[in-house]
């Protein structure tokens, strides 16, 4: 495990959907070693625990990383106040990222809500060989669809209330897609019920699937055993820790 802890400059920040903020951070050391699916642990002014947020994109040549997060509670509200030019205090990169298959492999990227951002770096990697299906509660929460398209991914947007895109969950478009295409891997991040459904579909179609999980964290580096999570390995249940063993797991390891 190799990570750093320090304060780095926010070089860009905007609001891209309702309560959703998009930030770029200048941190060459992190950009250099980070990989898709890893996360950063952010200090929120006035709060005791850091907030884990996935890395959304990595710009090695600019020495920057991008994060996209939603204001959910008091800590993320505070982080969203950090302005361009100000410092953000982070530990990064943390956790294990996604496995990247040999070039030419085809991937499906499934994002639900704020599970969408970590899919974007995968879209940069897989480009035209990726299809993104991203779901949101309602239209004003939709984000990043153009970013996926710019990377060459085909994109399907879903909303639960039908205010834009496909009316319903990501699972129906996923099934439709799998009837016609035969990708090598499915990556997914989002609410637990969505992950459970995606994992079932992947199993049905016999496609490898990696998912990214969430758990409340203390240290973020595997030292406190706070972020325990039940997983299965070789048929046996045992505890792993999301911050160190995850957040990315093979779908057949997780118990949802």
């Amino acid at each position, binding site marked *: 495990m190799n*990570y750093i802890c320090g304060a780095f400059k926010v070089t860009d920040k905007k609001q891209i959907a309702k309560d959703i903020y998009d930030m770029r951070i200048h941190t060459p050391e992190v950009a250099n070693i980070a990989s898709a699916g890893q996360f950063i642990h952010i200090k929120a002014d006035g709060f005791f625990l850091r907030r884990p947020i996935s890395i959304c994109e990595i710009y090695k040549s600019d020495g920057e990383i991008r994060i996209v997060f939603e204001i959910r509670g008091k800590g993320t509200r505070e982080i969203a106040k950090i302005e361009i030019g100000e410092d953000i205090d982070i530990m990064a990169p943390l956790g294990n990222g996604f496995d990247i298959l040999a070039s030419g492999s085809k991937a499906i990227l499934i994002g639900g809500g704020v599970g969408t951002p970590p899919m974007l770096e995968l879209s940069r990697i897989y480009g035209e060989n990726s299809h993104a299906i991203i779901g949101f509660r309602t239209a004003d929460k939709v984000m990043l669809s153009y970013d996926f398209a710019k990377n060459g991914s085909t994109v399907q947007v879903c909303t639960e209330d039908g205010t834009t895109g496909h009316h319903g969950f990501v699972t129906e478009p996923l099934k439709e897609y799998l009837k016609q295409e035969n990708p090598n891997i499915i990556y997914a991040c989002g609410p637990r019920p969505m992950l459970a459904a995606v994992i079932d579909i992947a199993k049905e179609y016999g496609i490898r699937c990696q998912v990214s999980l969430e758990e409340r964290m203390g*240290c973020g*580096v595997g*030292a*406190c*055993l706070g972020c325990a999570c039940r997983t299965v390995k070789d048929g046996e249940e045992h505890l792993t820790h999301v911050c160190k063993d995850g957040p990315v797991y093979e779908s057949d390891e997780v118990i949802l």
Partner: protein
Amino acid sequence: MKPNLGVDIAGVHFKNPVIPASGVYGFGKEYESLYPISRLGGISCKGTTLYPREGNPPPRIAETPSGVLNSIGLQNPGIDYFIEHELSYLKDKDTAIIANIAGSTVEETVEAVRRLENTIVDMIELNISCPNVKEGGVAFGVSCDGAAGITRAVRRATTKPLMVKLSPNVTDITSIAKSVEAEGADAISLINTLLGMRIDINTRRPILRNNVGGLSGPAVFPIALRMVWQVANAVKIPVVGMGGIATWDDAVEMMMAGASAVQVGAILFSNPLAPIEIIDGIEKYMIDNDIKTIDKIVGTVKPWRG
């Protein structure tokens, strides 16, 4: 001339008085990417029991104002794994090693301690105060009889320096401290966590799956400081102080209250560099104030009289 930050506690030398607290530092691996472990006075390893333990189900962590609740529940790989894998890793790290030992019964605890006899462990910290497991730990720590009984048994089982870690969830911490001193403890450490709770008002469920958990972090500092002061005045053996220490001045405050060394716990969640910043801060404080040795700080608070 550089000040000497070294301290000796129950015959164990610590190159400085700053030790990561049990449970927040694993067995020392996870922070090495930030600084070498050898900078630390010592390490108090994750609480270990005779047999491996799964701990409590998640969520195990909840934020509170200036603090955190945890309900890890003593998850650990068991004493044999600890000896074989963790200790061998710590062997050449040039820092004092404290094994933090707990158990559900006296027998189990004694057996775990016994297995450490011929290891490189420098000191045993007997945890009689974990609030997060039903059958164990805290039951010993909240009565004088319980505390005395387990201390007596463990004292007989080991020749290593024995430090007993007290629970703050008691009416009178000094009487418990005196009981363990009387049974041959070489040192006392305190405080463990205070029992607390949080509720998610949306789900109407406790945030911790275990309903309750242990509170630590800066929020508890004034309580910890008071207890360390009381205990340091009640016993003759050295006291290692902890509970909410976040900065070098907190550490100095704790030492003035009577702590010969300090442990730093939850603050690592906020600031993983805290132990190093605290060591450097104490050194600078000593230079600025022309203090040559740590004993010129320990227990020097001048209480108001009358």
